[in-house]
């Protein structure tokens, strides 16, 4: 099978999940499409690096994330506050979470630094295991667990009823691990 045919097969199998991942990462349909296209372009050029075809999806996701990081490097478009300001743990609550609106979710995700956004997207969206996420982000598994817990806490707080006004407003602060 030629390289072009192999990449065509990869496109057909993974383009939807890659696009959705790109959208959740970038928060923009245009950026998501560009990222997806760039990812398959890179995949075509680096097809020789893919030794195990059953790892294709993880490999493509990693390329996409690298493309995204390359784009946003040095871009600090949001004011940032330490994640500690949000709170580490979700408090005890009996609040039933209503259906989550996609736009609100995206606004809440956009507030998260990529270091927190990526694990939470991969965890929920693609059901990546902690180990997969750790491998994907080249982080210790404990760090992944910690970031995921804090990101979930933030999302839960942001998506709770009564938080509508805060989420997605122009003055929203970006949540990071404290590194400006």
């Amino acid at each position, binding site marked *: 099978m*030629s*390289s*072009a045919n192999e*990449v*065509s097969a990869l*496109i*057909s199998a993974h*383009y*939807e999940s890659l*696009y*959705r991942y790109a*959208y*959740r990462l970038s928060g923009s*349909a245009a950026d*998501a*499409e560009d990222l*997806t*296209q760039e990812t*398959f*372009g890179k995949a*075509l*050029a680096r097809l020789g690096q893919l030794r195990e075809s059953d790892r294709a999806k993880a490999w493509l996701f990693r390329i996409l994330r690298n493309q995204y990081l390359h784009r946003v490097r040095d871009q600090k478009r949001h004011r940032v506050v330490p994640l500690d300001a949000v709170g580490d*743990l*979700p408090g*005890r*609550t*009996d*609040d*039933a*979470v*209503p*259906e*989550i*609106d*996609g736009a609100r*979710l995206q606004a809440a995700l956009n507030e998260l630094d990529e270091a927190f956004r990526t694990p939470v*997207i991969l*965890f*929920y*969206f693609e*059901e990546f*295991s*902690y*180990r997969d996420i750790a491998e994907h982000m080249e982080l210790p598994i404990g760090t992944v*667990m910690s970031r*995921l*817990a804090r990101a*979930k806490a933030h*999302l*839960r707080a942001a*998506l709770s009823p009564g938080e509508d006004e805060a989420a997605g407003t122009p003055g929203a602060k970006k949540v990071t691990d404290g590194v400006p």
Partner: protein
Amino acid sequence: MECRDAQFYLRLKRHAGAPGTDELGSEVQGALAEHCARCPACAADARAAAAFDRALATAMSDVPVPAGLHSRLLASTGAKAATARRARVARAGALALAACALALIGLGSYARSRPVVDTDGAEGLAQVADRQSHFPEGETSAFLARNGAPPALPLPFEYGLHVFNGYERVGGRDVPVVVFHSPTGRGTAVVYVFAHNGRFNLDHLREAQVSGSRVQVFPGQGEFKGFTYVVLTKNAEDVQQFLRAPFQRG
């Protein structure tokens, strides 16, 4: 399991995943379920966490994929693949051209390194022969000098009998020779000029005669020191008949 541990595991638990995707392990899951069964607060938290996870997982993947994206991606990568293919072909072509160019350069160098024998070359040969014919002594002198030898032969040869100057292969190496014919025209004398430069071992060189051919050895003396002259005569008694009259015997 205490409430604090339960809260910790509830945060890590995958509540909304496919069966078997939770990484807590059966032992922890069992203990957590047992704790929630007897702790209404943690049970409520577990229900809330599960509801949140399910809602989040659903919302997370609820991203409409643009119509035509599949075709655009295929077209884009197809174009990239074609460009890459063309680049590969171009590179291969460039390599082939470079190889051809190198081959041509090599061939050219080889061709240039070979002596040219064409109309001009043939004319050159004729000119050399003509010069040797008209100015045999001077041409021989120049020939010997070009080969690093004294510009004369150690014996007073009659240059009216001179035939040509050239080279003979001896032991796989070229040796300058000066050739004369006998006054009768039937015999020849070939004078080999051996330089003592280590290219030949002349220690065992002796005079010899085989049928009509005779070899005479003249080690260089005085101005001819460092050279050995070997004269091969055919159909002639010896070298004497090739010398100028005053030097001939009788």
